Each structure stands twice: as C-alpha cells, then as structure tokens.
C-alpha cells in the first residue's frame, strides 16, 4: 500500500514540477508573481479536452495544439498586461494586474466550458501491471515518464543550448544581457510561452490521470506552483522539481493516511511555514540589498 501511495505521490509531484517550472522561470527573470499561470494552463487543458472529446483528434496532436494555445495565451498575457509594468518599481502593481489577468482568463474559460467538474478521457488505456510487487497503473507510469522527460529536456536545454544560457543570463542581469545583443523582449516572451506549454502538458497529464478537470483547478494550480517554487527555491529548475515532489508526496501521504480534506490547508500551511523559515527555499540563493 505504502509503495503505491509513494509512487502516485511521485507521479503527482512530477506533474506539479512541470506546472511549477514555467512559473518559477518567469519569476526568476521578471520577479513577477504570475497569478494567471494556473488559469492559463487550465485553458489549454480544456482546449485539449474539447479536441479529444468533441473532435476525436489523436491525443498527441491534441496535446500539441492545446500546448501551443496555452503557450500563446501566456505570451499574450505577458505582451498586453505585464510588459509595460516591467520596471522594478511597479512590482506590486504588476502583481495586481496579474490577478486581473487571471480573472479575465478564468472568466473566458468559464463562458466556454462552465465551471463544473468535467470528465477527462484517458489518453492511454488504463491498465494495471505488477511492477516490483506493486500494483501500478500504466497511466501513472506514462505520466511520470513524460513529466520527467519534459523537465529533463528543459534542464538540458537551459544548461547546454545557447538560447537557454541566454535566458539564464537575462535572469541574472537584464541590462547587461541586452548589451550583449540578447533580445530581451523575445527571451521574456519565449519564457512565458514555454511556461504555458509545459503547464498545459502538466495539466493534461494530471487531468488524464484523474479523469477529471475543472476550472477551480486553475487557481489551485497557481498556488501549487507558488508553493512548490517557494519550497524548492524560486527561479531554480531543480528547485521546482524538488518542490513539486515534496508537495506531491506529502499531499498523497496525508490524503491517504490522514484525511483528504486536510490536503489544501496543508498546502497553504506549507507555504506560510516555508516563507517564514526559509524564504529563499531549499535550493535558492539569498540576496542582499545594496544601498
């Protein structure tokens, strides 16, 4: 039993990490809390649902289209809402506009799909296999595999590609990066786009693993991304992975062995405790204000 719970926890954790990565990267570069993150990826997930359920499109193609739609939406939100308020003195103001953007995106989704819990088709046939003596769902294994693969590819991209290194440098010193000829606006847009794409992939995997999706998961997703990013260390990819795993595991353990109604209060308490104890997160760097 414990083994299965842990495995599901790891699966959920990997999906959470996928959702967190985009949010965390955005924060790393712009120091902006993107409240619209969750609603954006739920929008993409719902598009995927429509494509699968209504038009019977092949799942891979559906996920691809949905991911691009989600990424495009994130890109649009950045362009229209955040770009003009990028200067550091607008940080609080841009947070409020981010909330506004979350509202708008959520409302648009609600007009299209309503706010009920909808059933989400399984992308792969749900079968159980016995692995190392554990009863495991194939869906869970594939979900875990895809999520880890996405994150691994992202980490490799950030570490070894020229563009990935440029993104990293923009987050370290935006002005200096622009003096190197790195096109800042394009880099920021692409980070938003990537965050949206990965979020949608995470959202689709999660919804398909649990066969359900609802608008309410959007805001919860934002909070999960916040919490996981804060636990792991905001702006760090490894931190996002670690934070996502910690959240996914603890959530499942508590859900099974204590009570599922304590799941969300736990999430929020973890966030508060982490902010109090180590606001820089497990893998984050501390920053010293310069006078």
């Amino acid at each position: 039993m414990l083994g299965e719970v842990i495995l599901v926890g790891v699966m959920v954790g990997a999906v959470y990490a996928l959702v967190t990565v985009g949010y965390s990267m955005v924060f790393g570069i712009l120091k902006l809390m993107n409240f619209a993150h969750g609603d954006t990826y739920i929008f993409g997930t719902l598009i995927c649902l429509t494509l699968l359920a209504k038009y019977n499109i092949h799942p891979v193609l559906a996920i691809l289209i949905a991911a691009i739609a989600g990424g495009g939406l994130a890109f649009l939100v950045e362009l229209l809402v955040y770009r003009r308020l990028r200067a550091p003195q607008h940080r609080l103001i841009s947070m409020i506009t981010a909330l506004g953007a979350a509202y708008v995106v959520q409302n648009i989704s609600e007009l299209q799909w309503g706010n009920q819990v909808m059933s989400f088709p399984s992308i792969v046939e749900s079968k159980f296999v016995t692995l190392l003596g554990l009863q495991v769902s194939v869906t869970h294994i594939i979900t875990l595999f895809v999520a880890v693969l996405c994150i691994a590819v992202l980490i490799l991209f950030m570490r070894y590609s020229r563009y990935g290194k440029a993104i990293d440098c923009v987050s370290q010193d935006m002005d200096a990066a622009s003096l190197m000829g790195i096109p800042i606006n394009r880099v920021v847009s692409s980070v938003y786009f990537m965050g949206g794409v990965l979020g949608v992939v995470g959202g689709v995997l999660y919804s398909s693993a649990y066969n359900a999706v609802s608008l309410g998961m959007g805001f919860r997703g934002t909070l999960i991304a916040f919490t996981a990013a804060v636990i792991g260390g905001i702006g760090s990819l490894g931190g996002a992975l670690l934070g996502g795993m910690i959240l996914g595991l603890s959530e499942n353990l508590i859900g099974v062995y204590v009570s599922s109604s304590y799941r969300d209060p736990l999430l929020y308490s973890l966030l508060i405790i982490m902010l109090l104890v180590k606001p820089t997160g497990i893998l984050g760097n501390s920053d010293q204000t310069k006078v």
Partner: protein
Amino acid sequence: MLVVEDIHAQYGKVKALHGVSLKIKEGEIVALLGANGAGKSTFLKVISGMLKPTSGSVTFRGKPLNGVRTDRIVIAGMAHVPEGRRVFPMATVMTNLEMGAFTRKDKAGVKKDIERYFDIFPVLGERRNQRAGTLSGGEQQMLAIARGLMSRPSLLLLDEPAMGLAPILVQEIYNIVQELNAAGTSILLVEQNVHKTLAIANRAYVLECGVVAINGRAEELMKSEEVIKCYLGEVS
C-alpha cells in the same frame, strides 16, 4: 564613424543630458570625462540603445541608430562594457564569453576568439569553468572587456573600466585598452581619472551637468587651465 548630435535625455525624473554632441573617427581613443552624475553613463546608454533620448540623433557608420534595438546595435558593430563590470555572476567565465558572442553565428570563429582572449588574459583561461561571481574585481573587469570584444565590435564603449581597481590593475587595464586600439578597435572611454585617461586618449570631451563643457585634443586639455579648474578643482 560615430556622430552624435544634440542629445537630450531624461533618466527617471532627472534631466540628465541637455544637448550633447560628439564625434569619433575610425581608430581613435576618445575620452569622455566628468564628475559623478555629470551624465556620462546616461550618454553611453543612449548610444547603445538602452535609453531613448528625448531628442537628438546618433549615426554609426552612416546609419542612423535612433530607436534601434540594442541587439541590432551590437550587430552593427558596437559593444558597450557597462559600469560596474556587470558580469553574469552565476554563469561560468566560458558562458559569459559565449554570451558576448550571442549575435554571432560562426561557431568556429567564436571558439577561436575565446581561445584568443584566454591568451591575452591568461587568468581567465585558468578559470574558464569557474563562476564569474567568484572572480576578483580586476579579473571580472577583464572578463567584462573580453566579453564585450566577443561581438567583434569596431567601436568599444568602456564605462569606467578602472573603477574600484587597485592602481596596478588600473595600469594594466589602460595598457590593454591601448593594445586593443592598436589592433584596430576604436574606443570611447568614460573615466573619472583625468590624467591617466588623457595620457592615452587622442581627444577628450568633458561633461558637466549634462552638457559638454570643454572638448579638444588630449595633449592640449592636459595643459588647459580650464580643465584643471573645472574638473579637478583646486584647493583654496
């Protein structure tokens, strides 16, 4: 090669430049002098496209640069080494140099150039896989200059490269600047240290409160009563 005419610029709430004009010819070292807050760094930011001037024009090799994005300006052949070094502290020396060549497409050439700068700055070669933030101030300054050179600029803008460095290092940096110039790079050097700068520059402009107070050939300015009075000050 660079013609700047009548630049007015505002930086935040402070009006920083009130009509600054400046010319750089091919192969020159031009010094831009002035006290803290005289508008030197703001002026460089205008030239490299980081800050939009309220009026005035910048022309680089016959092409107007007004409102052109910084990355285009880098491609056009101008590199700006900012004040306070501003290396990417969490990235390695190697990555810093690679970023300097972001606008270049010739991978082999970039590799060759990196090795070349490791020859010129052996310290950097020794520390190529070290994080730039762990380098000392002087090493970071060399990295910043090398990084600026990676885009193969024909004009290098150096903003206070000697700032905060030990005097011995200052001399070394100045020697490097002269070498680079001898190798064919034109240089706009912003400095506070009047004498050292005038010693290596061909011409100089002195900024005071956002206007050019004096300009002329370096040797003449060295002897000028006006420079001494206006810029260095004399103790009464």
